[in-house]
């Protein structure tokens, strides 16, 4: 299983992501700079968290329009798995690979804390290591994680089982509709996730609840 981490300027959780992929998958991912001539042939493409282009204009908006995203879009259409975490999720929605949008948190403040996630669909490549309905711990750290989609889109993604992770209602940190924390595209090979499973993968982190996502993808 080969993976690549794509870095845009201003992303800052790429080191956390590389550490998680390396520790869990056994081999380090390829590190791809957004201007690199090509993206190596891999089975998993990860866009990590951070503040691409400073989150200026709108979170993820500038990175979403880079040539590298066209390459990622093509690979996704061919079925390659794509994981976008936090800013990565925002970039994927801005690029149209995932439906909906991530608005400013309802509190209007950045929030970094641990939340609980319910596995809403355990039948995806990203979540099959968990049981349907299982509740896991996971940290969040974002300013704009308030998931929104119009009623029609929302009904569609709910109907298709595209909602993979939900915050438990009492730990929803940002006001997301239907407590949505992570969704896939229609085909189920692209996941956007607001929380940071890569920061809860070993005992030193205080738990390993986030490990299943990577273990399910890499092993």
């Amino acid at each position, binding site marked *: 299983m080969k993976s690549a981490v794509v870095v845009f300027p201003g992303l800052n*959780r790429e080191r956390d992501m590389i550490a998680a992929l390396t520790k869990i998958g056994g081999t380090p991912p390829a590190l791809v700079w957004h201007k690199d001539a090509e993206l190596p042939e891999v089975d998993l493409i990860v866009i990590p968290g951070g503040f691409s282009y400073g989150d200026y204009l709108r979170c993820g908006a500038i990175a979403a329009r880079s040539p590298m995203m066209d390459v990622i879009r093509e690979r996704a259409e061919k079925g390659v798995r794509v994981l976008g975490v936090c800013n990565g999720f925002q970039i994927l929605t801005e690029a149209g690979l995932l439906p909906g949008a991530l608005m400013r948190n309802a509190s209007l403040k950045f929030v970094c804390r641990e939340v609980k996630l319910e596995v809403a669909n355990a039948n995806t490549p990203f979540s099959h290591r968990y049981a349907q309905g299982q509740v896991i711990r996971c940290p969040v750290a974002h300013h704009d994680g308030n998931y929104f989609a119009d009623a029609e889109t929302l009904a569609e993604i709910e109907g298709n089982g595209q909602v993979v992770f939900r915050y438990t209602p009492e730990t929803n940190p940002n006001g997301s509709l239907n407590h949505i924390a992570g969704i896939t595209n229609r085909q189920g090979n692209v996941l956007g996730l607001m929380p940071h499973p*890569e920061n809860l993968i070993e005992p030193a982190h205080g738990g390993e609840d986030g490990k299943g996502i990577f273990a399910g993808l890499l092993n």
Partner: protein
Amino acid sequence: MTYDNHIDITPDLVAGHGLKPDEYQKILDLIGRVPTYTELGIFSAMWNEHCSYKSSKKWLRTLPTKGKRVIQGPGENAGVVDIGDGQAVIFKMESHNHPSFIEPYQGAATGVGGILRDVFTMGARPIAAMNALRFGEPGHEKTRHLVSGVVAGVGGYGNSFGVPTVGGEVQFDARYNGNILVNAFAAGLADTDKIFYSKAEGVGLPVVYLGAKTGRDGVGGATMASAEFGDDIEEKRPTVQVGDPFTEKRLLEACLELMGTGAVIAIQDMGAAGLTCSAVEMGAKGDLGIELDLDAVPVREERMTPYEMMLSESQERMLMVLHPEKEAEARKIFEKWELDFATVGKTTDDLRFRVFWQGEEVANLPIKELGDEAPEYDRPWIAPTPPAPLDPASVPETDIAEALLKLLGSANHSSRRWVYEQYDTLIQGNSLQTPGGDGGVVRVEGHPTKALSFSSDVNPRYCEADPYEGGKQAVAECWRNLIATGAEPLAATDNLNFGNPERPEIMGQIVHAIKGIGEACSALDFPIVSGNVSLYNETNGRGILPTPTIAGVGLIEDHARMARSRFTRAGDVILLIGAPEELGTHLGQSAYLRDVLGRREGTAPHVDLEHEKKTGLYVLSLIREGRVGAVHDLSDGGLALSLAETAIVSAQGAHIHAISTQNARAWFGEDQGRYIVTATPEEAERIVATAPVPAVAIGTTGGDTLTLGSAKPISIKDLRDAYEGWFPAFMGDTLN
């Protein structure tokens, strides 16, 4: 455009630059002529308090700055301390008080940016940040606005840059109504053989400008920061810089990449007084002259004058001296990161600082005198008079449970969750302890067992009552907090915040506080390796509480043996280590007195440094031998508050039987050098029997209430509600 570099230098203009008549006379004597306008600006930038430490230098020299692990003490961008295995921790704390009061978001954000730059300028990747924040009384009309802006600014910059904020302080006192304090700390890791300094070497080498473009923001900032506030502070907003963490993040990556190529001879970030200060420091330290060509400086605004370019405090800029043969390689790295790269001058052998603009020499000054040989004062001072001791009879017996709930729900002792949840505490994936405990702990990436512990402390109430004991206490408490995580305290950085040093009573506070800090640092083998002084924290003649913030770093050899302030099991014995026979006695200047009784009286608690050290090292040995569960230091609010904090964090109660009275002295006394630890009953017996310092079993863990002697039991839920409730209610939050 026209620019008159030779305008009349009137006394008003001199005063407007923060220079005193005798300082101006010194300039005239030094250069033998009237300075040009640009030169006057340069002098004001270099000789203000913020850059020159002219009032404090004499006393700062007395601080212990050496130790077996110290690689670099004060005088560089940050201090460097050896942590073994060829690695070093590089750290410093710096204030951004004046700008944060004028424009809280940008002031705080650029404070964080500045300190991060100090650390990565030396070749270190930042791994941890802290912030010590002090605001006016909660009811003051500006306080909420300032809290909200400063916290958002700290988070906005640090989160985007990508450094975990692992600790800090937030306090309120009316004495900060007109001058808040924003003290930002950062630490980074580097290999000991890859540390970069600001001393230039070699004649005729290119001086290169890197990073963001120069604008008009912050012109005169350092001079502003060296003056008192009056009623005209709104007019000072343009002197506050604007931060761009996106550029800073790219600058970090570009600098570290460039340093890896071996191209860098010397590097200095452009902080206070921007281009002026960085160029002069690089030259003066290397006994070289510097020649700058301002036409080559990347600017983002049109028609900037040389005066503005030399004094701009635009952020995210660096100056370097590079090996000429590597210039092309260096340029390529900066182009990759889409940052400016411009050769703006060269080193010379004439010890002059010469600045050219549109073919004209706008400044030509002796570089050593500008830098190392700035004025220095031995300002008159008077020894502070300690207040009368508190009359114990004047403190009535009280309902201990009620008093504890009141303290927990007060502005200064309630949970800071509202603040630290706006900071990314987890990024980089190495945070082992995040805010809410004794110290923040971050593991050393790539090492199987090592971790670093961080804490920032000072008790301004003590410092006001007795700057000497207060200075000692700030060091001791920081040292104690590091011990409580299981770390060997390595070294510290100081951020000395005081009022106007031209007033002898303020100067007396500075002198005594530094004396106390120095003694404590010597006694505890805890040298000061970097620091910053912020004076003139006054508004309309009223100064802040003397606030010498101490931020320390400790080393945990094996983080599997790290300690936390959390009960690990029910049925453990709670031991009080290092306490006097009555367990607690000192209520003077205590949290209980101020925040429960509304009184500010008495002396500061005495810090017996020998006792502090003996107790601390004993507690550290217990942690390292794995003999104790929870460990928490005792400070503000004494035993009762320490127990309550531990119970809340652990969601587990405790019953304390050793004190039966309702006497506040025992429960809320702030005697120094004390810890609570928990151990199994058998281990507790051994500790009590063999401890070289006082060790008393005071109770047991378990249950869902905290019972303090004969006081009514308080449920964990009530404790938590009181503790967590104050801040969100104060800030008017309705959403979580």
